[in-house]
Structures are given as C-alpha cells and as structure tokens.
C-alpha cells in the first residue's frame, strides 16, 4: 500500500511521455496505482503527484470526482448490477435484491471475507443485454437469478480462472511507445508552452 513499484514507475514514465503535458497522464496513472493496490492508497497518490508535477491535494481533488476510484479496500470481486433504465425495466432491482440476499450485505458494501463488494451502478452500455452485470468490469448479459447464484458460487470457489482479474486491473494489454512514435504533439505543444 505504498508508492508505485519500480516496475510501475517505468510504466508511468512511459505513459507520461506520450502526452503533450504530464498532467494529462493523471487518470491513467491513478488507474495504475489502483491496479497495483486494489484501491488508491495515499502514498500512491502522493507518488503520482510527484510524477506528474502537481500537489497531492490536486491529485486527490481530481481522483474523488471519479466513481471508479476507491479510497479504501474493496472486495476482490466488485459485482456491479446495472440499474439503468433498460435494466430497470428488465428486472435489475430484483436481481440486485437477490444478490444482496445471497451475499448477506446491502448494495454499497463489502462482505466480511473481503471477497465481494456489491453495487447498483448506472448504465454500463449493455442495454440490449439487460439485465447486465459486471464483475471487475467484465460483463455478464441477460442475467437471471439462477445465473447470479451460479456466478457467485463460481467466484467463491475460484472456478472462473482468469476471466475476472483482481479489482483495479483494467486492460491486460498496455499500449507501448514504439520506435516509430512520432512525438509531434508533444514537440509542438511544448514549443507553444515555452512562449
């Protein structure tokens, strides 16, 4: 729960260098920190601040605007049940209620074993597949209560292998900065900023 690891600092610097101004890398770097620790630790936010050249307070100010960032530990699996209008019409609330009963906690909270955090969330862009659910941002479509029983059981018993990486991990492929990176944006912007 600390600063970014050396390996992540390398990744962070590569991300920063792709933007004309370092601060533009702020949100990607916060995701990197959340990927590392599962949530945003204070030390990690301070480290991100150093890397992009702003104060820790500024980083915190930006981070708190965005719902995906967590400031304390959450479950290994964040189970999001969409309650947007299309899902609302197709049984989302019944499904959310069912999930709460299965897990024994209310939406917005985490099970004691730190395995599940359950949330009712806004539209996750799967509206034709309602009711839609995601686990660590990986989707399940047209979920019935029986599907939910099975999903939770499978997650509890770790039967789904790598389908759901730990909370905080988004893309498992990173963009790289190859040799033929043009760098035209940064060069032109830095020339303007120097004036």
């Amino acid at each position: 729960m600390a600063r970014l690891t050396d390996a992540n600092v390398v990744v962070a610097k590569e991300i920063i260098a792709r933007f004309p101004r370092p601060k533009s890398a702020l949100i990607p770097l916060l995701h990197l920190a959340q990927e590392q620790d599962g949530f945003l630790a204070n030390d990690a936010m301070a480290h991100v601040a150093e890397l992009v050249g702003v104060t820790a307070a500024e980083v915190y100010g930006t981070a708190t605007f965005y719902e995906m960032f967590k400031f304390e530990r959450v479950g290994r699996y964040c189970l999001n049940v969409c309650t947007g209008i299309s899902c609302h019409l197709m049984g989302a609330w019944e499904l959310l209620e069912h999930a709460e009963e299965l897990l024994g906690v209310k939406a917005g909270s985490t099970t004691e074993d730190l395995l599940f955090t359950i949330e009712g969330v806004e539209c996750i862009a799967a509206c034709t597949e309602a009711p839609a659910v995601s686990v660590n941002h990986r989707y399940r479509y047209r979920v019935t209560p029986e599907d939910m029983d099975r999903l939770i059981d499978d997650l509890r018993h770790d039967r789904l292998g790598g389908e759901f990486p730990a909370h905080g991990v988004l893309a498992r492929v990173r963009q790289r900065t190859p040799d033929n990176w043009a760098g035209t944006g940064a060069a032109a912007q830095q020339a303007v900023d120097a004036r």
Partner: protein
Amino acid sequence: MSDATVPPTPPDYTQPGRVPTGPKLITTRFDQPDGYTYDGYVRTGGYTALRKALTEMTPEQVHQEVKTSEMQGRGGAGFPAGTKWGFLPPDVFPRYLVINGDESEPGTYKDRKLMELDPHQLIEGVVIAAYAVRAAQAFLYVRGEMALAQERLAQALNDAYAHNLIGRNILGTDFSVDVVLTWGAGAYIVGEETALIESLEGERGMPRLKPPYFPASKGLYLQPTIVNNVETLSNVPWIVNQSGQAFHDLGAPTSTGMRIFAVSGHVNHPGVFEVPNGITTFRMLFDAPEYCGGVRDGRSVKAFIPGGASAMWFFDEHLDLPLDKPTIDKAGSMLGSGAIVVMDDTTDMVAACWNVVNFFSRESCGKCTPCREGTTWLQRILKRILAGDGRPEDIDLLMDVSESISPGIAWPPRQTTICPLGPSAVSPIASAVRRFRHEFEHYIQHGRAVDGVVTPPIHGVHGGARIHV
C-alpha cells in the same frame, strides 16, 4: 399528432422483407470471430482507405468527401462532421483530435461494441481524420469501465504502429501522427466534450462555459480541437473508400448513411442494428422480424425513449415517424445517441421517470446551482411519491423545479445551466407527468401505483434498503 391523417390500421411489418434495408458499413465484423485482430481486419479490406487517403488524396480532398457525405455526428448532437472540421481556425497549430468513447447515456450501446469488435476500423478512421484536419496528435478517450475495449484498442494500436499505420512517416509518406489511448474513471458528464477535455488535462470533469470554449477554437490545452464520437469516425474509412456521395445516397437526404440504433427494453429481441438512416421508422424496428420482432408478450407500447435518457419520450402516435433528424426534432425530441428504450403497458411510469431523473441527479457535476440542487429535489420528490408519501402539491412542485432548470420546459430545451445535463433531467418529468399525470395522482392519493403496472423493488423506496442520494 392525432389528426385525421393517421391511418386507422397501422402498417404491418411482422412478416420478413417488409422493411427497407441497406449495406452494412461499420458492423460487418461484428460476427467475425477474429474481426478485432490485425490479420482479421486486413484480410477483410482493412487499411485500404488509409492508404488511399494518404497516397492519393490531399487532406482537403478527404475533408471534402466527409462534407459531401453530410454525415451527422453520432454522439448526440447530430452536428455534421464535415462542417465541424471546417470550424478549425486556418492557421492555428498544433491542433488535436479527440475521440469520444465515453458512451454512458442510459440506453446507449454501440460505441463499446465498435471498440471491442472492430478496433482497427476506428483507428483507421482516426488516422484518416487526423490527416484531414492536420492534427498533431489524437487522443482516444475510452470510458473507464470498458476494460475489454481498452484491451482490444491497446493491442490494435500496438499492431498498427508495428505495421507503420500510425506514428512517424505513416506508410512511407511524410504524414506523421500519434494516437494515444487514454481513459476515464466513471463520470457520465465526462462525455460532454468540454468536460472530456478537462478530464484529458487531468482535471475534474466539469464542462467549460461556451462561449468562449468551443473546442474547435479553444479545446485541449486551449488549442483547436475536434471532438468526434466513435461511431462517427468508424464511418470514415467507408466514406473514403466508397465516396461521400455513396454515403449520401444511403438513407434519407436529411439523415444520410446507415446508422446504428440500440433497441432495448420490452421487445422480444432487443439488439444493436445498423439500419438505413432517416427512412427506417420506430415501428419497423420494434415489429419487424429482422429487428426486434414485436413487443414482448404481444403487449403494446406505452412509451419509448427515442434517443437516450436525455430525450423527451414518445408514444404510440410517434411509432411511424422515420428516424430522421429534422423529423424527430420537429416532433419534439431527438435521436441523440441512437438509444431507443421501449416500455410496454405494464410499465410503472412514475418509477421509470424516477429512474431517469435519479441518474441525472447522481451524475450532475455540481458546477451550477439549478442543476445540482434542482435535480436532487426532483429525485427526492419522485422518491417520496413512489414511497407513498407524496403530497398533493408535489406534481406542481416537480414542474416548478423543472421550470427553474429549463425555462418553458420546451423542446429544444432552454437552459439556465452551463451544459445540457440539467435540462436532460426535465425530459422524463415533462414526458411522464404530461402524459400519465393520473399515475402520479394515483400514487399521491392511494400510496401505490395504478392497477396493472409492475413496480420494481427500488432500493431506498421499497423494503428500506440503501438510499441512492
């Protein structure tokens, strides 16, 4: 709308072959298992448009093709892309291209599909557009929650760089541009283009005041910036390959090309369909076996949202309107982000109205008072009505608060706010209260819904569970 010209028997589309069709332009790889890979893309004609644009056309010629196509932006406002590109001040550099992949308007589902299933098509469109507008760099801003889209785009970008399709001296020409993948972290308002730019600068995603911050003149880092939607730019390779005129020949002259609509809610087969723009009607989408195959259980449509949660609702008298921008604007709503949500006759309109209002109240960025306070109040009043604690004056109060957010409660909405989010919360209220006032009154008088509708067990309203405020 219920004048004598409405035919007594509505057209019947329930048999196959009765609706207009057109070619698929941008959904051709949705069913191709490897359509998202570099090999799968190139094998099916990918990157030919980029080669053509860079080696046979000037930036002006590419721009001209997009102008000729009269393609309207697919992100919500429907502004013609070619015209927007023309707003860049001629001599100010660097300029940027920002791709809006923040898709989060309730009911909207197409950009995520385009990014996951055909990332190279988008990237090809982006590089061509960057060439046409002479952008120094392009930023692909993907909604934070869309992990798979980010993954597929990252891989596609790496592959495209490796094949010299992005970066320095693309395809051996003297055109160079970088495309950076970046992403948000959960905030609907960041889809608004100036808020997206703020977010891209590492700030809280709050909209900027227009004027003066029109992105084309003062956008990212206050440099000229074009913001386009994912679907908009995904169409660009086809336009370059087939010509702007070929695009214009599809659909209606006032809404050209093909367009993706997501139809969700109470239909037999909800889905994402690319249909001839401007000539397909709502009834065709709902009834035709090629599309949704009818309302579920043979029921009837009580209301539908024609263009995302921000839009005014439509009713059965609107079913035969074509999905044509000027037609829908004139009828008092919008096609917005191509999100159609169908509610059948069992729908509790007070609950549905609350759902949409609650969304906007949760997503208000808080920058302006009428939106921040107003949407919260609207949500609270609706919730107490749903909970059986409504007061006789509540319906008037809803309209009063709406009036203070959007004076006149008209369409297109006027606003006392910086961005259109505040007025968006008024759409469901104006729609539901005007049409189904008796359902609100019934709740207020009897503490429950009218007979025959189904009320979902909403949190914080039923059973005393967590309250979303």
